[in-house]
């Protein structure tokens, strides 16, 4: 089992390296000298040349790449062109906001998704089931920005319950978390329902009932325990996705997180910052996938033994 995890870990590292390479190449393909772009149209050639040297852009690409990777390993992603601060520092402060948002959104998504999924499965084909599944499909299909704007319009503007934007207070995170979690809540609910329905047909559910477990006990101790396997995988992947920056939600609610940083990097033509945020996100997604995979192996004794 340990060997298996090590192999997967190695694979994850390789994929991450590949991702770094891909981002690096993509951002170097862009025609034009970033230094020139940075200095504006009317800059002196001498100034541009000096800037080019300062940024290390005069060196061959492979040297730049090695420099970059070596720096990234030490946690140094260069200095942001537009904000003038180290990228790692910018990302660190942004990440705390993203972290709060992602955790709240996940908590919302899991709570709502799991509970409504269970209810829908247990009361299959009832009005509640149809209602929950309809709403969840709406959740899956609703663009995040749409959800965000509708929430903003009603709860901030009309009802004035929550602040429109910003993260000065904890309350400022609630609407963004709901807007962001809405989507995942829908997919979690659908997954919980379909898995649970399958599992409730299993023979060991009959066994549990034959033992004298009440419905609640059967549902929680036997059915949910088995149904959680795929759900946990999905949740881990979703969480890593949210952590890697909710671009739209953060932009709409003006939350200084990783996603908004990436948008700022693009509008400011800030290659180090963009490179840093994208790589950071990729690392989180890869980590999330790895953890989900490993978690599955830990939780399911059948796979554990085969491995």
């Amino acid at each position, binding site marked *: 089992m340990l060997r298996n995890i090590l192999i997967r870990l190695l694979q994850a590292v390789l994929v991450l390296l590949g991702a770094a390479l891909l981002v690096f190449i993509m951002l170097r393909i*862009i025609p034009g000298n970033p230094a020139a772009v940075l200095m504006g149209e009317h800059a002196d050639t001498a100034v541009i040349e000096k800037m080019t040297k300062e940024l290390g852009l005069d060196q061959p690409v492979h040297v730049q790449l090695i420099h970059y990777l070596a720096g990234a390993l030490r946690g140094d992603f260069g200095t942001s062109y537009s904000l003038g601060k180290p990228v790692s520092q910018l990302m660190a402060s942004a990440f705390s906001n993203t972290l709060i948002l992602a955790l709240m959104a996940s908590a919302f998504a899991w709570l709502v998704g799991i509970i409504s999924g269970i209810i829908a499965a247990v009361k299959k084909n009832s009005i509640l089931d149809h209602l929950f599944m309809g709403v969840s499909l709406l959740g899956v*299909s609703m663009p995040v*920005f*749409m959800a965000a*704007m509708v929430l903003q319009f009603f709860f901030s503007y009309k009802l004035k319950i929550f602040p429109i934007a910003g993260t000065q207070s904890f309350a400022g995170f609630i609407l963004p978390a709901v807007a962001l979690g809405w989507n995942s809540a829908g997919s979690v609910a659908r997954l919980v329902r*379909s898995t649970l329905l399958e599992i409730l047909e299993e023979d060991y559910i009959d066994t549990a009932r034959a033992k004298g477990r009440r419905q609640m006990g059967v549902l929680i101790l036997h059915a949910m325990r088995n149904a959680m396997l795929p759900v946990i995988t999905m949740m881990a992947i979703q969480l890593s996705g949210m952590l890697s920056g909710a671009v*739209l939600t953060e932009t709409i609610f003006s939350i200084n997180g990783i996603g908004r940083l990436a948008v700022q990097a693009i509008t400011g033509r800030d290659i180090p910052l963009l490179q840093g945020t994208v790589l950071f996100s*990729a690392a989180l*997604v890869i980590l999330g996938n790895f953890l989900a995979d490993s978690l599955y192996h830990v939780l399911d004794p059948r796979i554990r033994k085969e491995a």
Partner: protein
Amino acid sequence: MKLPNRSRQIAEEFEKRQQEQENKQQESKQQANREYLKNQIAEEETFFTLIRRLARENKLAVVSFFVILLIILGAVLAPILAPYSFSDMDLLHRLNPPGAQHLLGTDEAGRDILTRLLYGARVSLLTGVVPTVMSMVIGAILGVISGSYGGWLDALIMRLADIMLAFPSMLLAMVIMYMLGDGLINVFLTLALVNWASVARIVRAQALQLKKTEYVEAARVIGVSRTKIMFRHLLPNCLPTLIVLFTLNVPSAILTESSLSFLGLGLQPPAASWGLMVNAGRQYLYMAPWVSLVPGAAIMVCVLAFNFLGDGLRDVLDPHLRK
């Protein structure tokens, strides 16, 4: 006397064996052909009965099908249906609420929202369909190559897919858009590049499964070339999966495009996609919520319809794809 006799015997036996082998080959070839034909017929049967089965099992999917048809019709007939001109501004009637004159109100420049919605449907549908077709073609070909060749080629393609899937799709789209620059074609390219990897993975998995079926084995035994097996046997049998994937990937492409446009990173005005319209109306959200919420709702309805249809098709065509 004995020797020539013996050699004749051997020769005869050899001939007989050869004959037998040939017969066997003929037989297996015929069998493969029959199998293939049978498969083909089964395929057509499902195709003909598909709609009926869909109608019986999932009415919502059929309704969605007609909703999509309606949207397509609206987009195609936009010049005829639209009550106003696409770009005529009417500064006297800015941000008018929905009413008799403007069914869905007017935007910040006094343009009729219904009109723009119809024209916007063209762009949004195109950005849904074109890149999806592109990504399906790329993904299907790479996936089937990966599945049938195996070895280092498989490893290469799959690791590449892993890398593509390591990025959050929104961020990846943003970076590619940044790399390529603005423009409709670049939006297409971006969305295609973002989505091919998941298609390739699914097709590969299916190709691996199909490779083990008897009729593919039979085809290989009689010496059908690998390329032929790939395009004659593997790909056509992935078709149901691909159809389902198509209906599920179109809405996600539409969503990604509208999100990009919403951030101002996708299409640029004066093009009109639904996402752009939402973005433009965003600053008037409190004064005139319809300006952004109406196109937002349009995106939602369209995506919802595709998702319903995809769900329905999946149940009918490919129950294994269900997660």
